[in-house]
């Protein structure tokens, strides 16, 4: 990391303590932690059902399409949806705040 010019540590600590940064941090964690909890829980529900309720998962919903297969495909759907929603949220809500704080840090550096 030696070649990265560092602002004074007080600069980073001041920013870290600032209200804006705390809001940014809260916003970020408020999005990614619950989302992670949700997709992990849903994934393991699916795994546990496949292992411990093979009868239910093997029930044919229509034709040869079993409930297990539908749930498996729903895992794909939720993964795609979370990706899309997160990217939109990050581009619109997170980036402007993060960039503003980053720019202010650069401003501090110039003085």
């Amino acid at each position, binding site marked *: *990391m*030696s*070649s*990265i*010019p*560092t602002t004074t*540590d007080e600069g*980073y*600590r001041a*920013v*870290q303590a600032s209200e804006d*940064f705390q809001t*940014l*941090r809260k916003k*970020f*964690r408020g*999005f*990614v932690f619950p*989302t*992670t909890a949700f*997709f*992990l829980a849903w*994934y*393991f529900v*699916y*795994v*546990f059902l*496949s*292992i*411990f309720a*093979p009868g239910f*998962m*093997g029930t*044919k919903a*229509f*034709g*040869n*399409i*079993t409930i*297990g*297969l539908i749930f*498996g495909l729903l*895992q*794909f759907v939720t*993964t*795609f949806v*979370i*990706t899309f929603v*997160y*990217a939109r949220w*990050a*581009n619109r809500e997170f*980036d402007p705040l*993060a*960039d503003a*704080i*980053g720019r202010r*840090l*650069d401003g501090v550096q110039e003085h």
Partner: protein
Amino acid sequence: MTTITFATAATTVGSPALNIGIFALFVAFTLGIVIKVASGKKTAGEYYTAGGAFSGKQNGIAIAGDYLSAASFLGIAGAIALQGYDGFLYSIGFLVAWLVALLLVAELMRNTGRFTMADVLSYRLKQRPVRIATSCSVLAVSLFYLLAQMAGAGGLVSLLLGISGEAAQNLVIAVVGIVMVLYVLIGGMKGTTWVQIIKAVMLIAAAFVMSIWVLAKYGFNISGLFQGAVDTAASSTNAKTAANAEKLLTPGLKYGLTTTSKIDFISLSMALVLGTAGLPHVLQRFYTVPTSKQARKSVEWAIWLIGGFYLLTLTIGFGAGALVGPDVINAAPGKANAAAPLLAFELGGSVLLGIVAGIAFATILAVVAGLTITSSATFAHDLYKEVFKRGNTTQEQEVRVARLAAVGIGVVAIFGGMLAKSQNIAFLVALAFAVAASANLPTILYSLFWKRFNTRGALWSIYGGLLSSIVLILFSPVVSGKPADPKTGLSASMITNPDIDFHVFPLDNPGLISIPLAFFLGWLGTVTSKEFDPDKYAEMEVRSLTGHGVATALEH
């Protein structure tokens, strides 16, 4: 009678000369591109990360190229062909895992590191001990992954080139290894990335064509395709396969047999979903883009491509089950790994087989090259520069060490591949994921998200996760003690002599124990140590979220 002709056809399918020809063409074409875009002298940044100059979209395609390894293509297609639903479970774990990378790891890693995973982990901790520990786990994970790819090459060779002799198979593994080292030496990360991009496009296109082809044979009726796979399995000459034909569509064919195999599957699922974001060669790819926004875009693209590809493998797997059938697949050299190439032959004869074979080799080449870059960066940047020389080296020395390391890793890959060529590749990769999820992910998450985290926590977690996962594998049925096959008298374990049995751990995959253990040790080590650097913590946290300092780092 048809079964017999198929079985003979299976030992040498297609035209070996054509297969070799298409592969040689791919190598010539990609080497040409590597020389054109990326030859010449390089700074350390150019060698390890292509100077961070790729776009998010390019990098996303390259990530797909890196991640859709021989295990994904050949291993999963084969697992679906033979075990149906239970094979599909693999691909779901491999895909959902990307959300961990997207939400928790990719952007923050890009913002706090430059060249290697250890850059991030040692950011606010004691440099030397943490870099040494991280290097150990990076090299261990990469070695497992490397062996899996080389094992895939070995199996393919016997199937596609009509070569069954040991010596000839070993020769082809050596050729793959040498070409891979050439890519890395000439092209560095830039050249390797372009090889991965080209390969990803070819692989996804081929999988798309094969899926449509299979579906067309069944009037685009998925349910009909499944029925076809069940019917083919039901007419198997193997009584067990025939009796279980209906079970292809339901869970449990592979993992539902006993309580142990059920728990083993939970263990595997944990390793898959938590392993991806701890794979060093995947993390390395995030450094090839300039900003965290581009890192985000990379993962977005990767998820679309990887998810789409796994949907295609579902069709390819059931297509192989229906059109080729379990008897022919099991009789082929490479067994399950041969399902996709055999399906290609069934659909489009030796020409399509040649194309798919060429792509499969290209897949192995590209993934192995990525692993080699990552491992050589760990040797040169973490061990040589930061630990051994304490930062006092020139760029030239560092790059020279990295190139030497790449050659050394190439030699290990070649000999390891020769030894591992009969192992199932999806399964070897699953072990790499288990070690990555145990040794790397806890420390990555703690250092990014837990204020108190410190050096002792990192060391306990990395070494604890690494040792526990490897020791558990060593004493698992993977290495010794699986029951002997009544036909061959050989055990399905790595040690095929059924009389040698020292397994004490019942599960194939160690994740269920080693992942929670590594998280626990990280916590325990941290709370028993008082070390805390508020300045470095502030710097790391502010940079990780705002990307401050990344742009300036790029100019060097």
